């Protein structure tokens, strides 16, 4: 939003107006949960007659809600890290190397994004129940890493294809080993894409309901599963409060990824020792 504000001067006002209308249309239904969450009644009410934070207090006092939130955040963090650790080498191998069966492997990586989640969920449920992974942290992490891998893979593939391959050759000619070239040249240049992909993967995992629904047990459920249950059995404004928290969290995450992107573009840190070094060089 802040970014679009700057470019208003460059566009004509009908375009601006249309953009604003579309944005309102897209955002309003989502944002309506925010005022609803600050109501005081025991049911969802808009606009609320009285303002309060009672439902936030209720959320933070309820052990079951907190456990679900903790599980979701743990699953999202771990699965994002796992998927990133797989995605980086996989993308490098796909774009820089010549692999046997590359097309098949690519399709397998992207499959969770293309197949209906319910199909993936049923398959995982059958496999995971055999391995006793239902309702366990490793089970959730493995499932979500598979689901978020395509997003990281695609983001990184796009970023690598924009990198000039001669940068790595230049690094090698200047004495860098393959690993040094990756660490000092490729990785920093991919950092904005990695940050963006990770933020996206994290949110995707947090938001995932279908597979989580199958993999949850009565003792161990994710936030989304808990929200669905809550809506089914007893619609309390806690759901609105949780939604608001998720919106704010997601926005902060996207902002953080954007910040990494900006910092990466500006990168260089001036060497503190320079002025002294320069005079020494002249004296010598």
């Amino acid at each position, binding site marked *: 939003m802040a970014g679009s504000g700057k470019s208003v001067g460059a566009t004509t006002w009908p375009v601006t107006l249309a953009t604003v209308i579309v944005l309102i249309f897209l955002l309003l239904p989502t944002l309506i949960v925010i005022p609803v969450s600050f109501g005081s009644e025991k049911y969802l009410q808009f606009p609320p007659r009285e303002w309060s934070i009672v439902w936030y207090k209720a959320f933070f006092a309820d052990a079951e809600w907190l456990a679900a939130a903790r599980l979701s955040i743990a699953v999202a963090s771990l699965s994002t890290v796992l998927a990133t650790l797989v995605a980086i080498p996989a993308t490098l191998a796909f774009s820089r190397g010549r692999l046997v069966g590359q097309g098949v492997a690519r399709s397998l990586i992207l499959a969770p994004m293309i197949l209906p989640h319910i199909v993936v969920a049923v398959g995982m449920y059958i496999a995971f129940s055999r391995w006793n992974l239902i309702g366990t942290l490793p089970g959730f992490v493995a499932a979500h890493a598979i689901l978020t891998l395509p997003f990281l893979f695609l983001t990184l593939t796009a970023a690598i294809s924009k990198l000039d391959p*001669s940068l790595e050759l230049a690094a090698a*000619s*200047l004495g860098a080993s393959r690993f*040094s070239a990756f660490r*000092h040249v490729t990785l*920093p240049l991919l950092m904005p894409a990695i940050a963006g992909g990770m933020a996206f993967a994290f949110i995707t995992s947090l938001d995932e309901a279908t597979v989580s629904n199958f993999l949850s047990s009565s003792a161990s459920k994710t936030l989304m599963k808990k929200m669905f249950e809550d809506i089914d059995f007893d619609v309390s404004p806690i759901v609105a409060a949780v939604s608001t928290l998720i919106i704010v969290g997601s926005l902060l995450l996207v902002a953080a990824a954007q910040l990494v992107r900006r910092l990466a573009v500006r990168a260089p840190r001036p060497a503190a020792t*320079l002025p002294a*070094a320069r005079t020494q*060089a002249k004296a010598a």
Partner: protein
Amino acid sequence: MMTNEASALRGRPAALRGGSVRIEGARKVYGSVRALDDVSLEVAPGEFLALLGPSGSGKTTLLMTVAGFEVPDAGMITVDGRDVTTVPPNRRDLGMVFQRYALFPHMSLRDNVGFPLRMRGVATDERAARADRVLGVVGLEGYGDRLPSQLSGGQQQRVALARAIVYEPPVLLMDEPLSALDKNLREQMRLEIKHLQKRLGVTVIFVTHDQEEALVMADRIAVLDKGRLVQIGAPRELYEKPCNPFVAGFLGETNFLTGTVAGRDAAGAPALALQNGASVAGSPAVPLDEGARALLSIRPEQITLQAGPAAAGALGGRVAEVIYAGASTIYLVDVGTGAPLNVRRPSGAEETLGEGTPVRVTWRASDARIFPAEA
């Protein structure tokens, strides 16, 4: 700019010592394409060698085998006597400048130039000092904190050069480093790179498809075609004594005339009988039998035109077109052998011959080269 370079250089203990490079029987095949076909050549310490050829001639592949990015299927590469044929690029200790500079966009110029020093474990302070000094050598003193994106193409080129010489490699490899620059800057950079190379004493292997660039910059030129080394020698030698029609045509402009070898002319020079009945003199690149089909090459600026009809048996023609090109004027002369002869004369120094003027066409036998006609 030059004064900056000179003052920065004075702080240096000694000029770089150039290394020698030896390529023996290098072969490289990609599928059915022979990128390198038994190429052997030597580069002396401190020499500037240009690898010249059209695209697909193998010049870049040859450079890449020296750099270590390609391993030849057969043959050997040595640098200063050390066999480096299978040594990975990062352990060859050579400098390389890429076509599109390949500066690291996320690093300041100081960090870019300091990168090879960092890879060699040089401490941060010394790294910065040496990077700044070399930036001064290439005329970018005080630019250390900038990012590559803040520079013009010519400046980026200088940074790439600085980065490739900061660790004082014995050999500097350059892959068409000037091709991305506009014409004026390219011509200026030619001389700057040449002067810098002479001052540092570094050996340079320079890939180019621009024959003028090769003539201006190189001590010797190696002409490649279809993966083979066709001819290697000083620019003057190649220009004046090309070994075959390909070299004659690729290096500078030339006219080709076909005919049969017909004994010797009045001055004792071997003569060529043309289809139009005229006989012209030249010096054969290889011994030729009388009656053999042959091709004569003569440079536009080595042809003399005189107004008037030609004697029987001598070459004559008619001026078909006059093109004024500033310092010189180009005459297209129809001599009745197909394509008109391209003749270049200094503008103003001689009388202008109008279009349609009958002219006598002559040249010195030593200026024309006769090659066997290719089958």
